[in-house]
């Protein structure tokens, strides 16, 4: 339901919108969809690449640190090996003092060493450098590094950082060290006994390797070092961790395999990269906070959004202009067609534009031209048809009247009434002369009234003066123009229907006068008159059939009425006022045409 409503709305919008708007919208929509798709693809690709790059960078940095750390540990191991194989192993402790050799060895690596010491199996100090006095309070055999060396005699053992507290230091220096211990075989009086060799590496050596490592390209990344149990060996903020002001996820990191991992620690997402250090089981842990990455991604996303908005705005602007330019010829053509529809005669349909539009313009031009020709033809045909109709209507009068008149003349001649016959014939001749009017359809009112007078002369003679007739005209009316033969059919009607039963008291009065801009020719008789419904049907074109059977169908009146309206318009024509037993008045309303007007209508009449 909702879908069909949406579809309907869409169709309505489509039909209401201009081609320019539709083009702009579609161009913009397609471009935006393309941009968003491309942008998102690039963004996701960039994010993935950036993550991979960061992980790769962390691994590379950790590998480098691992190399350095490995070198430092190897150096310690080398010192330990040298101390064991070149100083301790071949020396008989009963005969030789190895303190000096150890001291020499210490001084060769003093920058990274804190002390070298050899202990007997029971923890007694045999030799040490540079400090050689053991504190009373300490028991080396209880230390972790000592027991580790004794438990796994084949290995070298690295301790976690601790404070070296074995030797008496007059300067009260307590130094943090990482101890490397191993089981050694000591020779005393030729007998082999066990012992432990301790090499204390300065903790600052590890710090120098691990500090200032740039992880995550300045995004707050750092590196720390844990032993196999997760105890922190080095951390750039170790003191804060020791003070309890900071926590680290070192226990979890110790369980991670080498490689990059994502973790959430204290609500913070982080990318953690782990690399195991050889010999020691320690792990280098690189941390890059993901929030920082996402901060940047957020910035990037915002930037991308603004680029999209900016581009959309620019696209809308450009597309509006482009579509306006593309659709301008079509719009011009549309305007021209609208002007044509409004009825304007001269419209410029010439449109310059793309081939299709120009072709369309030419086609419309051709179509309009053809249409105009066709319309002219139709008008001409209509005019010809009208004229033919007028001619037909006009010609309906004559044969009927001519026959009756000539019949009367014959009758008069046969009865010796020659003079009357002459009068009638003369009137008939003049009647026809005016009827013909040298072919002109427009004659003066005077001629029309003259025509009526001759007709009445003839009819009065035929009807043996059963009625009297009077014709009058207001001054100036006679010089005006009218279409011809409009009074005679009314007189004919008045005589046939009004005077037929008169007995000398019939009366017909024809008067012409001005009424404003119109001319009224009124034909009044004192005949029997007509009921209202007959009057109503008399001028009705459909009434012709209804009255066809009665005496006189009123066709003459309708012909006159139609001729006047065809010539002058529908506001002109006949008006019939009649009451039974009270006579009939037929009023002819015509425009008051002067000579110029008469000439114009004469031309339009096809002269």
């Amino acid at each position, binding site marked *: 339901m909702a879908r069909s409503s949406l579809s309907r709305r869409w169709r309505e919008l489509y039909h209401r919108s201009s081609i320019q708007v539709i083009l702009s919208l579609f161009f913009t929509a397609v471009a935006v969809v393309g941009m968003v798709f491309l942008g998102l693809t690039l963004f996701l690709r960039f994010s993935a690449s950036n993550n991979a790059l960061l992980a790769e960078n962390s691994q590379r940095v950790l590998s480098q640190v691992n190399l350095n750390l490995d070198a430092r540990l190897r150096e310690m191991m080398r010192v330990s090996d040298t101390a064991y194989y070149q100083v301790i192993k071949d020396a008989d402790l009963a005969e030789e003092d190895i303190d000096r050799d150890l001291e020499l060895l210490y001084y060769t690596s003093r920058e990274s060493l804190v002390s070298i010491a050899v202990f007997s199996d029971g923890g007694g100090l045999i030799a040490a450098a540079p400090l050689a006095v053991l*504190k009373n*309070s300490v028991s080396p055999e209880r230390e972790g590094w000592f027991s580790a060396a004794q438990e796994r005699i084949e290995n070298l053992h690295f301790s976690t*950082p*601790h*404070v070296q*507290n074995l030797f008496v230091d007059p300067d*009260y*220096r*307590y130094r*943090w060290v990482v101890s490397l211990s191993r089981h050694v075989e000591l020779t005393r009086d030729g007998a082999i006994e066990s012992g432990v060799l301790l090499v204390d590496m300065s*903790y*600052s050596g590890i*710090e*120098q390797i691990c*500090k200032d490592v740039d992880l995550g390209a300045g995004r707050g990344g750092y590196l720390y070092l844990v032993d196999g149990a997760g105890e922190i060996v080095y951390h750039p*903020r*170790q*003191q*804060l961790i*020791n*003070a*309890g*002001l900071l926590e680290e996820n070192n226990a979890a990191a110790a369980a991670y395999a080498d490689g990059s991992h994502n973790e959430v620690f204290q609500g913070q997402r982080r990318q953690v990269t782990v690399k195991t250090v050889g010999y020691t089981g320690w792990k280098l842990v690189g941390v890059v906070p993901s929030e920082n990455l996402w*901060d940047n991604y957020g*910035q990037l996303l*915002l*930037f991308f959004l*603004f*680029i999209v*908005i*900016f581009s959309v*705005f*620019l696209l809308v*602007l450009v597309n509006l202009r482009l579509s306006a330019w593309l659709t301008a010829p079509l719009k011009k053509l549309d305007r021209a067609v609208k002007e044509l529809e409004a009825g304007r005669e001269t419209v410029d349909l010439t449109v310059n534009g793309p081939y299709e539009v120009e072709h369309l313009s030419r086609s419309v031009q051709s179509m309009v031209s053809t249409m105009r020709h066709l319309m002219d033809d139709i008008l001409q045909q209509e005019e010809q048809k009208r004229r033919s109709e007028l001619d037909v209507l006009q010609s309906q009068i004559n044969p009927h009247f001519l026959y009756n008149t000539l019949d009367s003349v014959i009758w008069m001649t046969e009865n010796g009434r020659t003079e009357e016959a002459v009068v009638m014939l003369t009137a008939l001749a003049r009647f026809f002369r005016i009827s013909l009017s040298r072919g002109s359809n427009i004659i003066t009112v005077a001629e029309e009234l003259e025509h009526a007078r001759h007709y009445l002369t003839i009819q009065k003679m035929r009807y043996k003066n059963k009625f009297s007739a009077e014709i009058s005209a207001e001054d100036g009316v006679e010089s005006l123009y009218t279409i011809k033969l409009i009074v005679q059919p009314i007189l004919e009607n008045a005589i046939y229907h009004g005077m037929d039963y008169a007995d000398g008291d019939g009366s017909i009065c024809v008067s012409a006068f001005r009424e404003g801009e119109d001319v009224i020719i009124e034909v009044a008789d004192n005949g029997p008159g007509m009921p209202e419904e007959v009057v109503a049907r008399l001028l009705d074109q459909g009434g012709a059939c209804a009255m066809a059977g009665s005496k006189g169908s009123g066709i003459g009146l309708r012909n006159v009425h139609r001729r006047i309206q065809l010539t002058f318009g529908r506001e002109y024509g006949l008006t019939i006022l009649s009451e039974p037993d009270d006579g009939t008045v037929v009023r002819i309303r015509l425009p008051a045409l002067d000579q110029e007007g008469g000439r114009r209508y004469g031309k339009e009449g096809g002269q």
Partner: protein
Amino acid sequence: MSGRRFTRWVLPLLMLGVLLLLLLLILYPARAERRPELLEMSVIAREADGSAWATARRGMEQAAADLNVELRFLYPGQSNSAQEQDQLLRREVESGASAILLFPADREALAEAARSASARAALVTLETDLEAAAGYVGVDNAALGEALGSAALNGALPGETVLLVDSAPAGSGVGERMIAAAVLLEAQGRQVRYFTGTADALAERLAGEEVRAVIAFEASSLERAAAAVSRLEDPPLLYGAGSTAAIAAELEQGHITSVLAQNAFSAGYLAVEAAARLARREAAEELDPLPFFTVRRENMYEPEYQKLLFPVTW
């Protein structure tokens, strides 16, 4: 200019300009990426020699590096001189210091200067709390004094004498510790005596007087007391507060019976952080008194105490 031309060209170009401006604003580094402005912070010590709080200083320096703070350490010419501290405090305020850390020598003597300083700068105290200061970072001095007194109860039987080393005015945090210890000891039937002076004078007094236990209430006096005790053949038990390398050595050698130590690094860090937050008008959490721990010879190398007594140094 016609309205049509404005709508067609000028308005879209104006909007394009606005969008470009917004774009530039977006490209401007985010707030998170910018370091806060450098803050100048003065640290006014109580003692002429700062070695006793070297660890706290390292904590301060770490915080300064983290929070973009420039520290200026000021020492009075004479230890525990409230008058000099008053002058230093006023001078730093006048010179426009935004934040001040103060180890007050005397509450009453510094009350007025602290009030006026607080009105113009973020004032945070260490070791001694001040009513006028905006914050205090340190232990509960009365509790620390009572803890030291309790420790001495084990060494001195009722009726025996406990000597309290009076090294700071009564109106200071150190003085407060001493008063709390004295009240406890006297309540438990111990004879309480007081001493003020050098290590030699203390050694001389201890040699001539039957003293069962000695209590020093801060690092400097504890170092001096340890030095005095170490010279005696039959030394009294020595208890004290503070953690320095010398104290650790004396503890290891048995000259000090037990030490109540706080994490000085943590105190220094938190003090700078609190003052910086106050100066920058940032939300700061209320600080609780810092914890302290009892360290003896037997446990001093246990990992947690090892880290407490011997801060990691490179």
